[in-house]
């Protein structure tokens, strides 16, 4: 019984902090090292309104390749039970969100972790596909889903020297 009460107190405090996390209490997530404070604002206050996609291309001194998707995101009818593609789409959205936070600091943008992750992925794909290329570039686009499939470029990377892995 004596050990029970500290455990109960811990559970109670954890729940109080969970409530505070929903109220955007400043600094509440700073010490959440184990990521145990949830945020339950699914699709709120405003939802992601567009589909994101990432395209890459190899560049040589003479010409530029066509844009090709970094990965194909095809939703299957069995997505209700098996949907690994959603992880990729979510990851791309998360990386783009992180990239957005560097929009106003152009000097840091190109050495930011999300930028380097996307560049690294683009680099690996181009190396796999065509070793004639000397440079690589990626772009993030978005479109209005079934409403309008025309892609708007929302982020275009610099052209980087291809690193042979």
């Amino acid at each position, binding site marked *: *019984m004596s*050990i*029970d009460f500290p*455990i*109960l107190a811990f*559970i*109670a405090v*954890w*729940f109080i902090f*969970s*409530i505070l996390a*929903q109220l955007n209490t400043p600094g509440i997530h700073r010490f959440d090292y*184990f*990521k*145990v404070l*949830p*945020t*339950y*604002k*699914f*699709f*709120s*206050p*405003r*939802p*992601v*309104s567009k*589909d*994101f996609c990432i395209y890459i291309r190899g560049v040589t001194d003479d010409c530029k390749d066509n844009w090709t998707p*970094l990965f194909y*995101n095809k*939703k299957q009818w069995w*997505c*209700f*039970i*098996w*949907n*690994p*593609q*959603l*992880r*990729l789409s*979510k*990851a*791309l959205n*998360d*990386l783009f969100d992180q990239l957005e936070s560097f929009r106003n600091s152009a000097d840091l943008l190109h050495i930011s*972790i999300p930028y*380097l*992750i996307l560049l*690294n*992925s683009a*680099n*690996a*794909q181009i190396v796999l596909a065509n070793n004639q290329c000397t440079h690589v570039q990626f772009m993030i686009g978005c479109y*209005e*889903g*079934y*409403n309008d499939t025309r892609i708007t470029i929302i982020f275009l990377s610099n052209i980087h020297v291809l690193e042979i*892995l």
Partner: protein
Amino acid sequence: MDHLNCFAQNSFLTLYLVICICAVGVLISAFEWLSMHKHFAAGGLFSWEIRRMGTHSTSFEKLAQWLFSYPNVLILFFIQITATITIFISSTNHILIGSCCLIIALSSILLNFRATEGISGADKMTRLIMIIGSISFFRSTPLVTSAGLIFISLQLILAYCTAGWVRLFVPTWRNGTDLALVLRQHTYSNKFVWSLTKNNKLLLKFVALFILFFECSFLICPLLSSTLFYIYLGCGILFHLSNAFIMGLNSFVWSFLSTYPALIWLHYYITLF
């Protein structure tokens, strides 16, 4: 309903049911990540080679270098699969179930350290349930198990209420515009649902308001009579299944519906008093 209340009379059985349903989600999730193993390799979207630059702690870095690099990171998913299967087959050994819950929770925390991208709200709910499961099964007293079940129930109520109340004050959620924005996406919808809803603003508004009403009023759900309570749970099950079928949010089904037995347990004891 009496049948449903039967298991609620046993808090250990209720918690075991919560853990088992949640473990199904962990199992599917682990296999999903394993199916994308190439994205964890060098040059993949989830590769460690760039992310390791963000780690600062030397001792943590040493562990991270070994565990988080490819293919070692896949061990974490195999550990999760082994732990979930062990949970399914060991219904009476509380220490073993608690250990498996702890292993799943720790592996989930480690994976979150490695990369936050691609982690959903369902994964976070699963982590909470597994931590509470490990505490409750290790201690194995009725008091701690009850506290664990109350915590899980309250987390579910908090989840629905937060999502509902935040959106309630946004006019575009109330009139169905934001729901249409979600349902037009390839990622979160399908062609049939979009063709059904794109020109039907009344349907969109009705569905949006129904979801808002369900989420915002979920706070009083455990206090309702049994009939109304189970109608609420039925709506919740329908909500998560439609999210899975239409939006592809498959992991939410297991993580959120696993909390329902805890809520049934809470409702049973509230009605007793």
